């Protein structure tokens, strides 16, 4: 079984995804790309929660006489809620981008800024 640095690989993936998401959010001027970054950022947190629910050797939390060790189902349920929140956020963000595109004719942050300065 993996231990130490590699044993925690799921957490390293979480950190990698989280930082990639944040970087996209900060570095990209395109609003759609920002939403993509935001989604990646949120997804990394979902994986963090799911990882902590895993019990080594545990099976899916469905009551069965053949098993006695189950994974913790609570984080899964929490993340189901958080995914719904994430979908709602993405939907709202995309709807806003559609309206921004109608109003400004662009979804690039610097071009929007230019048009705001002129007006």
């Amino acid at each position: 079984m993996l231990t130490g640095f590699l044993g925690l690989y799921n957490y390293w993936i979480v950190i990698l995804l989280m930082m990639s998401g944040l970087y996209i959010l900060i570095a990209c001027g395109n609003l759609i790309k920002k939403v993509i970054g935001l989604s990646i950022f949120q997804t990394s947190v979902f994986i963090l929660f799911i990882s902590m629910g895993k019990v080594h050797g545990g099976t899916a939390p469905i009551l069965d006489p053949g098993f006695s060790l189950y994974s913790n189902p609570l984080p899964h349920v929490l993340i189901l809620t958080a995914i719904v929140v994430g979908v709602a956020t993405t939907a709202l963000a995309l709807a806003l981008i559609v309206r921004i595109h109608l109003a400004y004719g662009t979804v690039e942050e610097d071009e929007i800024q230019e048009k705001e300065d002129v007006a």
Partner: protein
Amino acid sequence: MSGAGVLHHLPILQVLVPLLAAPVALLLRRGYPAWVLATGVSWLVLVMAMGLVRQVLINGTLSYELGGWAPPWGIEYRVDVLGAFMALIVSGIAAVIMPFSRRSLAAEIPADRSAMFYTLILLCLTGLLGIVMTGDAFNLFVFLEVSSLSSYALISMGRRREALTAAFQYLIMGTIGATAILIGVGLLYMMTGTLNMADLAERMPDIAHTRTVTAAFAFIVVGVALKTALFPLHLWLPNAYTYAPSVVSAFLAATATKVGVYMLLRFSFTIFGGLLAFEIMNLDRLLLVLALLAALYGSTAAVFQTDLKRMLAYSSVAQIGYTVAGVSFASLTGLTAGIVHLFNHALVKGGLFLVAGCVLLRIGNVTIERMAGLGRTMPWTMAAFVVGGLGLVGVPATAGFISKWYLVQAALERGWWPVAVVVLFTSLLAAVYVWRVVEVAYFRTPAQTSDAGVGEAPLSMLVSVWVMLAIMVYFGINASLTTGLARQAASGLLGTAL
């Protein structure tokens, strides 16, 4: 159901009533019936909040098991004096703003969207009340997102296209903040195996020194500071408040940032406890420095604004600084100052944003330059601005004075007189930016003749403005009720008997 039965269910009804009313408002489709419903609901919620305050004062902290599931498994709603007081602020502001909203919205958003507006504001109310009622850390995150998502949509309803970019900017920053809170809650669950705030608090002393818990604390503080718009994480606030419809600016300025401070109090005192927050993480020093910078920066920026709503928004950044400064003292007087300022500033800033709404309705613009001569053409509106402005400065006999008095007292108690100097200096700056508007409105004649014909704002709007400010002045003269509640809430947080 008997009367006692209903009373027992108040904590959940507080959240359920606006939540169920929101889709009904949407189904009503037309603005007028939706407005009647939203107004009725906000008044009902205010009455229930008053009932909650009374119950909490008589019986102490209320615990309500959602669906009858006992706390560690089910979600618990836990209402203490602080929670009830916050519910009173949020629902009270909503109840005063609703009558105002009809005429103001008619001028600011298309008629076919007004039913949607009331749906959103009811959802926002649900979220804010849920945050202050719940005793479950994850449930708090969910309610935070309910209130945030609806406020992004509310802000985007502003007349100008800048409202869209302001809403998008707030959405990005707000989601980062909320996700940071979610990470913190997740790390806490990892360490304790519980999400119930009381259970978390109980298990905290044993694990307070672990790195996971300090990381959780850092994530949560940053997330909450983003939602509170604490300097330097306030960047979303000025645009959002400037371009949102006036009713939304008033509602959010008076409630959303206040609930942010509530979350800060709840997490750092109730859940993490003084040991972790103030001894290991030195939160007090961090918050004090940021709070003073917020007060200085916000007040200075407000002096240089040309737009009335933007000026009020920067002033909010400064006022959040005062509240957080009170919190950072972590003493009974300091917390009392912070909590009572939540109430007082909600009334002052709510009232002033409503005044901006009246001005916007009549002259279609809130540039300070364009307000010349309004002292004559809109005497009641501008008189309200003067009263609210005095409250912002903190002149005696206004509620603003009470909170600043406690804040200065708390600073001197600790011997930190430079803090008192900053509070007084920024109050002077407040006098400067309030005076700029008063001077233009009363002592300058309008440059354009087209403005000569403007009249007073409609009665329904003036009533809301003046009710808000009259309550503010009342609690400036007779502050025993508000300071008493704030003191009890503060002692509850510090875990000391009065």
